[in-house]
């Protein structure tokens, strides 16, 4: 399996605090790579660096695409999603609560629709070419809603959905930008066991059917151990272990980091 993402010597400092210290790891195509670690280990900071919300103090991040490798450092802000095709979800759900479920998924396809609407000109003239493109976007939204079973709620406000559905909606909304790499920040937080199992199924589907690499931050070990192909363990901003799920379970360093050292 080829590399999708390489993080090389990533360092992020906030003033005197080093949140990430010289971190290097790889994530492969069609694999789920989990980043785990105790609270404050710097997991979300890694995500914020990858997705352009922070500018790292040092180090490089490369995304390997078909047309060659690109450096994520060059892209900031919205360009990470627009150009580099790295999508993310958030620890605290960030949907557009007062907009309908369908609208949420259409905003994710904003850039293609913007071009199709001739930057609003064709859309104002109501040309057929735009209406066709809009229909395609709706079809894509329907495809994803069918998968998570929310098609009949497409016209309801996203904020009115139950918590577990909101989590799933946020994930498929990110998938609507057709990302190469999908970064999920604690997608199982607050889910009950049944919902966690559904989430596992959805993530496996995205991995195998959509050929999308997934980077996952998670505390719920049933999710991590159930679906991860590769686990990276952080503690105090440093990588303390890297390996498969089974190797991680038995690793002495990891157990020490979570449970402390026997004096």
């Amino acid at each position, binding site marked *: 399996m080829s590399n999708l993402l390489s993080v090389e010597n990533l360092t992020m400092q906030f003033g005197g605090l080093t949140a990430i210290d010289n971190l290097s790891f790889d994530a492969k195509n069609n694999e789920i790579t989990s980043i785990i670690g105790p609270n404050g280990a710097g997991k979300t900071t890694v995500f914020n660096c990858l997705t352009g919300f922070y500018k790292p103090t040092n180090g490089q991040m490369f995304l390997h695409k078909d047309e060659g490798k690109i450096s994520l450092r060059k892209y900031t*802000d919205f360009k990470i*999603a627009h150009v580099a095709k790295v999508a*993310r*979800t958030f620890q605290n759900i960030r*949907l557009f609560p007062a907009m309908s479920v*369908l*609208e949420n998924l259409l905003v994710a396809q904003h850039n293609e629709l913007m071009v199709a609407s001739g930057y609003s000109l064709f*859309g104002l003239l109501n040309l057929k070419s735009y209406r066709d493109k809009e229909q395609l976007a*709706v079809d894509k939204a*329907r495809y994803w809603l069918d998968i998570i079973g929310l098609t009949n709620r497409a016209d309801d406000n996203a904020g009115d959905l139950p918590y577990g559905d909101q989590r799933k909606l946020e994930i498929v909304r990110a998938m609507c930008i057709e990302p190469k790499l999908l970064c999920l920040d604690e997608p199982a937080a607050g889910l009950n066991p049944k919902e966690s199992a559904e989430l596992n199924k959805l993530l496996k589907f995205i991995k195998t059917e959509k050929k999308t690499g997934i980077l996952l931050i998670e505390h719920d070990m049933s999710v991590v151990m159930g679906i991860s192909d590769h686990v990276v363990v952080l503690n105090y901003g440093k990588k303390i272990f890297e390996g498969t799920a089974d190797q991680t379970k038995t690793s002495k360093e990891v157990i020490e980091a979570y449970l402390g050292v026997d004096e």
Partner: protein
Amino acid sequence: MEKKDIIQSVKDSLFTGIIALALFGPIVGLRTASKGEGLFITPQWGLVFILVGLCILGRFLINLNSARKTEFTFFSKFTSKLSSVTEEKAKHLAITAILFAVVFPFLPFTDRYFMDVAIMILTYIMLGWGLNIVVGLAGLLDLGYVAFYAVGAYSYALIATTFGWSFWICLPLAGIFAAFFGILLGFPVLRLRGDYLAIVTLGFGEIIRIVLINWYEVTNGPDGITGIPRPSFFGLPFKRSPDEGEASFHTFFNLEYSTMHRIIFLYYLILVLALITNYFTLKIRKLPVGRAWEALREDEIACKSLGVNPTNTKLTAFAIGAMFGGFAGSFFATRQAFISPESFTFIESAIIVAIVVLGGMGSQTGVVLASIFLIGITEMFRDLEQFRMIAFGGAMVLIMVFKPKGILANRKPTILMHGDKK
């Protein structure tokens, strides 16, 4: 209702009376009047007692009502009915309203005064609709909207008086100028949201006004610009005695000369401009850019994570909102034939924001209702002179008490997957 409740509400009403007395006592009770040499105080205790009595009675009635657990139903019922109408019915309502607006000038009771008020209300509706793009859709609280109104009015006035071009050429130019200023304001405030944005836009509104006052060479300062050309009816001016060899509106159509002709024309002009604004907003709301505005209002960080460019999205909202403000400004200039910086004070911005917020953020119909309600009530009490602003404040309080989220606060999705069944 129990005895305990009644005693409670009487106590509460009396307390309200004490507050009312403390307020009205000095404000209304002690009237200053200058007689001969010096200022004298004329007490007006009768008036104070009437006002305080009214407050106590009003408070008591409200208490009775809330104790009975029934709401003040008329207003809420009316508006909730309005917000729950189906698409089909809403269309009928809108067409009826537009038809009424079209025949309004020819109704038997319509006189000059009614027309003037109607034109004013329509101007505010248009401004409200323009600002609705910025505040209601994009969620950017702009307290300096009057600046674009001023830019539109002054650019129309300056172009028309300098080059003598016709209204129909100057109007789009004024709109473009205003849109340019919208972008100019947009750039520095891109990173700001909420209160901070409001403060900066408020400052921007004042800056424009102060520049207009002090840039004497161009704007003629506080003296304002006079002799702004009136609009013509497709080349036919509204003049009593047209120049030699030139037709005017009444000679061309063989009518008796009347000043009402121009008023009616101005009325239709602002009606058409306002309807264009509305049509444009309704259309663009359903386009990707409109959805991006609303998404930006909901969550800017999520927008970024989905690849929506927040800079462009905000700037288009500012520019388009400003453009409609500019159109309204040109209309104002051509209607008044005279403009000065005094017409563009902060109170205008405040009224427009009030109309948008009280109408229900993002609701086009709400803007219409709020404009009619706020401006109409203020006009009804014009005889009270300086006290008519109390009516304005009272109207605002009424809306805030009974409809805290705005008159029409529901939002319909811009696109439906399952059609309009519900």
